[in-house]
């Protein structure tokens, strides 16, 4: 901190100095400096003789007078010293700050200031978020191949006939889910890696399912997990309640394949792909920020769009 405040002081000093050297503008410049500058007009200041050196002792054998810096040279030296001191101090402070940041204690596998950064960004995002803002929808002609990615919690030999959804202690079958109004949307699926595809999702709106099993008022989070909790995500309530957040059982008009998370997965276009959890086994309501598989591995917990 002392370096910073020191730098600040020097900064204001340099600012004043720069004003003084404004030789060709401003009638209200410092009288001392101004006089020197005006006296130089018309003189060739590059000649050493322009500076009055001490008179030579021996006139017959003139020794070169010791070259004194001109006022301009002295001024340049003074400004340079200050400028480079501040520059050097600033560079050292920046480097030290960088070393501190990169070696700071880690929370969720990122330096804690950056984790706090994620959380601050989350607050901004939640304040700006509106349920009425929808992820763009596309015509069927825009569909692209749904990429298979992320198989944590999925097993090919899983018996989907035995599957049940546990939502806040209530047990639901796939028929129970399909009994809700079927919602269909063609939206963009965006992976946190940077690629995206356009897919048609059909399923029950999560907000409509939750309305039947309502959480206590002001519940903040929804947690979801795969069978055996191999994969798990946390959602903020407003993203869970978004009209485009579906408990999907169809992708591109076909029942979900096991690689896409049969029999039921989340399609949530207001989040990155990592939150679109496949093969949901349990949904819980909580006021404690739920653990999230990828947030424990360095990613932003919110990961929202």
């Amino acid at each position, binding site marked *: 901190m002392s370096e910073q405040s020191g730098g600040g002081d020097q900064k204001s000093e340099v600012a004043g100095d720069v004003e003084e050297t404004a*030789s060709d503008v401003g009638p209200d410049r410092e009288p001392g400096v101004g006089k020197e500058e005006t006296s*130089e007009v018309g003189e060739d200041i590059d000649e050493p003789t322009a500076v009055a050196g001490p008179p030579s002792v021996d006139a017959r054998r003139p020794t070169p007078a010791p070259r004194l810096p001109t006022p*301009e040279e002295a001024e340049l030296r003074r400004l340079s010293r200050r400028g480079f001191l501040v520059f050097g101090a600033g560079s050292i402070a920046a480097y030290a700050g960088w070393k501190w940041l990169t070696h700071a204690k880690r929370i969720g596998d990122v330096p804690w200031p950056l984790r706090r*950064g994620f959380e601050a960004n989350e607050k901004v995002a939640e304040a700006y978020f509106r349920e009425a803002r929808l992820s763009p929808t596309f015509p069927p002609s825009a569909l692209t191949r749904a990429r298979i990615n992320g198989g944590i919690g999925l097993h090919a030999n899983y018996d989907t006939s035995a599957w049940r959804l546990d939502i806040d202690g209530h047990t639901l079958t796939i028929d129970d889910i399909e009994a809700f109004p079927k919602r269909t949307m063609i939206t963009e699926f*965006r*992976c946190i890696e940077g*690629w995206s595809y356009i897919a048609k999702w059909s399923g029950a709106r999560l907000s409509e399912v939750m309305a039947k099993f309502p959480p206590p008022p002001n519940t903040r989070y929804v947690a979801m997990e795969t069978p055996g909790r191999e994969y798990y995500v946390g959602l903020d309530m407003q993203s869970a309640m978004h009209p485009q957040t579906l408990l999907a059982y169809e992708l591109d008009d076909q029942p979900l394949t096991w690689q896409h998370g049969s029999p039921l997965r989340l399609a949530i276009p207001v989040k990155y792909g990592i939150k679109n959890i496949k093969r949901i086994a349990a949904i819980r309501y909580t006021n404690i920020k739920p653990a999230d598989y990828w947030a424990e591995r360095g990613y932003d917990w919110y990961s929202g*769009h």
Partner: protein
Amino acid sequence: MKLEKKHPLAIRWFHWVNFPVLLIMVWSGLLIYWANPVYRIGLGSHTLLKMTLREPLYEKLHIAYRLAEGMSYHFFFMWFFAINGIAYVLYTILSGEWRYLVPNRRSFVEAVQVTLHDLHLRREAPPRRKFNGAQQIAYTAIILMGFGSLLTGLAIYKPVQFSWLASLFGGYPMARFFHFWITIGYVVFFVIHIAQVIKTGWNNFRAMIVGVEVVNE
């Protein structure tokens, strides 16, 4: 020897704050880009240059498998990049410095002349002004690129809340495309900028730190 005031203190601070911040943004952006390095230079199906590296080289340069880390730095330092850039633009407007920086009708002809001179194809030296036409175009373009980075970045970062912005760039994948190529633009700017600073010499470089330049008349 005569001293002339060149770069105001505020502009020197904005410049030197931006340098490490932009460096961090480009570096962390590369950590993110590694996860999906899809762009190329080419025409139709003919590819001249794939904008990617071989995986061993990524690993040697410590770029591989650092997507999460890249995002954590990118979404932290974006604020410094944005605030510093906006403060700079506001300063140039309020102080009147924009007059030296914004190109005018002459700048474009002058920029061609300056370029020809730099390539030793034209004898006549650039005009003795704070910024010649080529500099005016370059320094204004870099600010427009900065805003381009902020806007395309916002479109990728929040493509639902700012879906109108993403569609303005032709959709989410196109916003990412522009975001990437603007960054390549910074790298090109940086190389030319450094070459020009070296060529112009110490007196000019010192002015960016000290503020004043020695003018011999």
